[in-house]
């Protein structure tokens, strides 16, 4: 069984991003980039499926600029077999466009399972996995915290408001990874070296026949209202007094 994992190159999760002064976007100059943390979890899950003998091949795909090769190499270093870059240059890719590109990749690769991160930590859209699933007419299991595969079926535990839900779906399907699905491994140095020799093919939206023109125009990107924090209280009595008499919230 072939597993396809889409990975996105995003700003590192530890960096506090700021809007640019001219409000045209966020300031990403000289900012550390990394694989989207949820995608790391998705890659890890796919690699574990291969290690268990359930999956035969793990293919990672990234849509974006040529810099995404770095992200793909990271995935190859932790155990993916092969990578595909859909090089869109500097064009902004919105979730619907990415879902369509992945649909085209699925048509060529015929995976039995797509494992995606549930959300990218830059645009926080939480859309691509569900959109791909819909475009393929496949079942979906979003926000997965446990995946068991057997006999062409997946039993997936999902994190939902209020607790957990267990879903049974037939393959092919799309699963999106939540935080607690697994703990991704770190790449070992020899594996990083080996990853450089693994195949990485490049294609483009045009070659895949996909129109990726943005549907949403971003009019501006601004700083959120600043919170006046930093106040301190001397002790518990002071805290209780201020909550009662100053903030009047208790």
């Amino acid at each position, binding site marked *: 069984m072939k597993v396809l994992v889409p990975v996105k190159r995003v*700003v590192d999760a530890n960096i*506090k*991003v*700021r*809007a640019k002064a001219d409000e045209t976007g*966020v300031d990403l100059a000289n900012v550390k980039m990394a694989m989207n943390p949820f995608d790391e979890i998705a890659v890890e899950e796919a690699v574990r499926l291969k290690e268990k003998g359930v999956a035969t091949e793990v293919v990672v795909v990234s849509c974006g600029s040529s810099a995404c090769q770095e992200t793909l190499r990271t995935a190859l270093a932790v155990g993916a077999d092969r990578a595909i870059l859909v090089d869109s240059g500097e064009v902004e890719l*919105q*979730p*619907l466009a990415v879902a369509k590109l992945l649909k085209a990749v699925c048509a060529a690769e015929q995976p039995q399972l797509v494992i995606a991160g*549930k959300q990218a*930590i830059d*645009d*926080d*859209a*939480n*859309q691509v996995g*569900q*959109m791909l*699933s*819909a475009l393929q007419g*496949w*079942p*979906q299991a*979003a926000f997965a*915290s446990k995946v068991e595969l057997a006999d062409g079926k997946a039993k997936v535990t999902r*994190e*939902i*408001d*209020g*607790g*957990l*839900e267990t*879903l*049974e779906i037939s393959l092919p399907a799309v699963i999106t990874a939540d*935080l*607690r699905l697994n703990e991704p491994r770190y790449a070992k140095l020899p594996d990083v070296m080996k990853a450089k020799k693994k195949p990485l093919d490049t294609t483009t939206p045009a070659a895949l026949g996909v129109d990726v023109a943005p*549907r*949403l*125009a*971003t*009019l*501006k*990107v601004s*700083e*959120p209202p600043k*919170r*006046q*924090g*930093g*106040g*301190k*209280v001397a*002790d*518990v*009595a002071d805290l*209780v007094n*201020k*909550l009662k008499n100053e*903030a009047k919230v*208790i």
Partner: protein
Amino acid sequence: MAILVIAEHDHASLKAVTKNALTAAAKIGGDTHLLVAGSNASAAAAQGAACAGVAKVLLADAPQYADQSAENIAALVVSLAGAYSHIVTVASSAGKNFMPRVAALLDVAQISDVTEVQAADTFVRPIYAGNALATVKSADRIKVLTVRATAFDAVGEGGSAPVESIGAAEDTGLSKVSGRELTKSERPDLGAAKIVVSGGRGLGSGENYRKLLEPLADKLGAALGASRAAVDAGFVPNDFQVGQTGKIVAPQLYIAVGISGAIQHLAGMKDSKVIVAINKNADEPIFQVADYGLVADLNEAVPELVSKL
């Protein structure tokens, strides 16, 4: 053109967040229809009909909506979409699950987690864990939105909309729910509570979390929440998580105990009216957003707080 709001409900009753989505719809402007897709859900539909501003409730009552599967809900919404300019639901785990399917099948963008309606085609949404706000304009014929419940007030009662029964869409048969483990609690719902008591890694263990924070929550009538670190460490179940990828809360009072204040956590609670932080390390970032920071050992401060309330 009219607006279709998809209700969140448990068949027997409407979830409160639906009323926040109705306010977002009212800000867009236009006749609002509320879709209740459920199984034996006439009680939820009746509650929807009583919400202010609802012109009509559409009730699709069929066994295939019992589980609220993304595939079946999306198929139904898509079958109705032609009559609407906007399709709106809450950015809850249910809304996030089915709505992107709707957008993809209609070949339109989805605008996720809207916090402000500026015009019928222009919306504000947080990006980068709320560190920036994007104002986006949609040129699509149908605008598909999920809205952040805490960013919109709830509509009131006093409506008396007709309830129209509609047929179900074809059952896609694509998925089956085989189990649910829901956290049972007498406490208010985390997303809707006026006061939230939240704990982090600093509590040290699940036992200590319960020993210290439950009496405080009981005293305040508060909901209990947690940071990702506390959930990952197994102190509390996953649905306690407040943050970028967990629950977004904006209560009157948020008490963060033993929480350092990672960007991802702040994204879920920084719109709270008053924030209290209790942590022994004065350098933690949580203090930068706290109105009242108490630098103290939580093992002593929390029981003292309970006794003084």
